[in-house]
């Protein structure tokens, strides 16, 4: 499998790369080389600095210190294929490829580009796709391959693939793998970012592992075992399972939330679990694992095709979010700015927004009640009461998330759902949010969160359910489970 050798000259090389935003160092003295004919896997937990590194390699961001060298950098021959598809769905395959072409001039040289398009499509494994086909008729995997073909269109020698398989199914993944191998065979250097450790061993010649902005291990794949990689990714900061002892093991009561056989192809399949009042359950999985979709389904925002959910013995009407809200479900979305809060309104107006019934009589708002509600909910999430008159727009992510949480709590929910409770939340505000949610749970609320952050599970959850590609893998007590076990389950889909 080891196709490369250290004697091949590097196409692209990072020399002492560092990047700091203000006082926060996100990348610290990284040295790594990428060679022609090699698939190079780049691994690391969320926030390890992978994206910053590839952005610098692709020339999107400038490093604070160090430099990028190598012939590919000199010729601007680095193409980046992003995780979010950037193909334009309404245009044809050919037009999408033409957009990636760098030739200047008033007219588009369609004939020449058409020939070139056929070549790159063959290389990307799309030889059977017609150039005139609208991109929206392609499958997700084919769109992902087209994304790769776009990178090839301008003769890029180094291709950076950012989690190309995160949202794909098994068969589709094989097509992407085949394309990556073909690229390596034709003398490209492929930089492959992934969270699926399984594919590292199938695919990569070389592995580089990052943690907290530093490069912690690099070498040919054969030098690594699965558990090496996981321990490198976690480092010594791996949490001892027993250091969170705050939530006392109260007598286990009967489950308050019973979810059975929830399915929505292709997002999640046959998901069943139960939640108890006073316990915080985390659905743990990578992007595309379905953990987030299950939470949205319970909120009534993503109606499942099959299955049902009972809350305190009442069947939740999962087809409507007005219905689930009436049954006592509140949801805090991950994306604050677009879904979680009303940016251009005051904290008070935000908090009362989903509980207007509580602050009005005969549909007439009572400002005094509204202020009292805002004050009491703000104190529950440890939000400074003096600021409840201010506009949410100017706040930090942490304070905005507190407002979003207070909004949800204002409906007095029986079931609190959260997606990525502290994504983009500053370190200072995280404990406040964890504390408030735990407090709610202790007062008898059932809490289900979806997260892709292991630290968050340690800080917040009592129980964790791992998910992999839409299916439940395992369920554990957070206190008695070690990190590597959980990581293996979400990365490989099999119990360790």
């Amino acid at each position, binding site marked *: 499998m080891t196709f490369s050798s250290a004697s091949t000259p590097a196409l692209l090389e990072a020399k002492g790369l560092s990047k700091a935003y203000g006082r926060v160092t996100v990348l610290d003295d990284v040295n790594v080389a990428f060679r022609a004919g090699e698939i190079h896997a780049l691994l690391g937990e969320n926030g390890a600095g992978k994206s910053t590194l590839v952005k610098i390699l692709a020339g999107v961001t400038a490093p604070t210190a160090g430099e990028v060298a190598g012939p590919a950098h000199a010729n601007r021959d680095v193409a980046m294929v992003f995780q979010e598809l950037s193909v334009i769905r309404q245009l044809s395959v050919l037009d999408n490829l033409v957009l990636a072409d760098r030739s200047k001039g008033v007219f588009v040289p369609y004939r020449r580009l058409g020939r070139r398009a056929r070549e790159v499509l063959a290389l990307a494994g799309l030889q059977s796709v017609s150039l005139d086909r609208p991109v929206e008729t392609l499958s997700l995997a084919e769109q992902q391959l087209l994304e790769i073909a776009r990178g090839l269109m301008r003769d890029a020698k180094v291709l950076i693939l950012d989690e190309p398989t995160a949202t794909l199914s098994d068969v589709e993944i094989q097509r992407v793998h085949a394309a990556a191998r073909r690229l390596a065979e034709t003398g490209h250097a492929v930089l492959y970012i992934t969270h699926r450790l399984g594919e590292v061993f199938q695919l990569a010649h070389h592995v580089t592992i990052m943690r907290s902005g530093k490069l912690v291990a690099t070498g040919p794949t054969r030098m690594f075992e699965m558990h090496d990689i996981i321990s490198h990714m976690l480092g010594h900061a791996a949490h001892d399972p027993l250091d969170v002892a705050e939530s006392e093991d109260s007598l286990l009561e009967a489950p308050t939330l019973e979810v059975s056989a929830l399915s929505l192809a292709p997002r999640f399949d046959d998901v069943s679990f139960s939640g108890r009042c006073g316990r915080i359950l985390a659905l743990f999985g990578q992007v595309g694992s379905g953990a987030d979709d299950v939470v949205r389904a319970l*909120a*009534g*925002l993503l109606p499942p095709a099959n299955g049902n959910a009972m809350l305190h013995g009442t069947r939740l009407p999962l087809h*409507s*979010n*007005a219905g689930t*809200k009436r049954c006592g479900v509140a*949801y805090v*979305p991950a994306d604050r700015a*677009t*879904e*979680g*809060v*009303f*940016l*251009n*309104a*005051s904290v*008070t*107006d935000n908090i*009362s*927004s*989903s509980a*207007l*019934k509580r602050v*009005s009589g005969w*549909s*007439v*708002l009572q400002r005094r009640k509204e202020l009292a509600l805002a004050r009491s909910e703000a104190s529950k999430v440890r939000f400074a009461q003096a600021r409840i*008159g*201010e*506009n949410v*727009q*100017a706040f930090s992510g942490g304070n905005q998330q507190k407002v979003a949480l207070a*909004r949800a709590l204002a409906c007095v929910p029986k079931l609190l759902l959260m997606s990525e409770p502290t994504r983009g939340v500053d370190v200072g505000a995280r404990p406040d949010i964890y504390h408030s949610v735990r407090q709610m749970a202790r007062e008898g609320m059932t809490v289900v969160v979806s997260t892709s952050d292991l630290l968050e599970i340690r800080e917040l959850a009592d129980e964790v359910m791992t998910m992999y590609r839409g299916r439940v893998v395992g369920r554990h007590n957070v206190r008695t489970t070690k990190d590597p076990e959980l990581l293996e389950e979400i990365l490989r889909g099999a119990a360790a």
Partner: protein
Amino acid sequence: MKLGAPRLTQPSGATLVAVATVVVAVVAGFTLDGFATASNFRGLSLSLSLIGIVAVGLSFITICGQVFSLSISTLAALSTICFASFLHLGAIEAMLVTIVMATCLGAVQGFIVGHFESDPIIVTIAANAVMVGAGQLLTDGQTIMGIGDTSIFNATIFNFLPVEAAIFLVVTLCLHVALRYTVPGRQMTLLGLNDRAARISAIPRTWLIVSAFAICGATTGIAGALLSAQSSSGQLQLGAGFGTGAIVAVVVGGVAVTGGIGTPIGAAVGAIFVGLLVNVASLAGFDYSLQRVTEGVLVLAVVVLAGVYSRESRQRR
């Protein structure tokens, strides 16, 4: 603390326009002959009241995040026809029939916009075409003369306040209270601020949009009926300036086209300011064309100022 004020320290658009209105009025009172007279005041309040009534209703559509209705002028014309046709029942009765008719026509447009999530501009353009055609068929292009006594709507209260202006004030206050102090009003504001967050909060989106269009229809009906009462007649050319006039007033009055920001009082102040400027321009000897130019430049100035302001506040963040 108030919903709609973009910054606590920053005065809202409507306040600025209100201040400008007072300043212009005072300056004109001292410098222009014939401005500070009872007859000019009566003429001024007559000329701006009807557009003001429509603008206050239109502000609900804008605050809901549904931009504008472009069928207002035609709906106003249909309202004049309706009022004239039913005037034989009595002025008040004809007014009520007209309001019901216009409310329903507005609500239908709102239902299409809300339920099918269609673009409000396109829907109201289409509705406009349908209503023009229907009006043509109904009247055969003729003027409908109403038979009945409309003096109640052409009276002057206490010898200085025309009934039209009084209705304008009452409608503005009622709708302002409805938007600011009721649950549906607050929900409309939230919907305009952030559609997706509003959906997640399970706000009755379709119903709110239907209500906003219905309110706009009702105020257009009132304005159309009052216009018809001035001449006891109705025809398709009447009220032609209501649509653009109301849009100008809403924009000048500090209601954000993106939704969620602004109040009905703001729209009313906008209507008063525009009416005042046009009045001053005509007293200063500008002819009709120059008055229109004044109006257009004013809207452009407001839009440019709003753009500059929002860019600055983005940079400050």
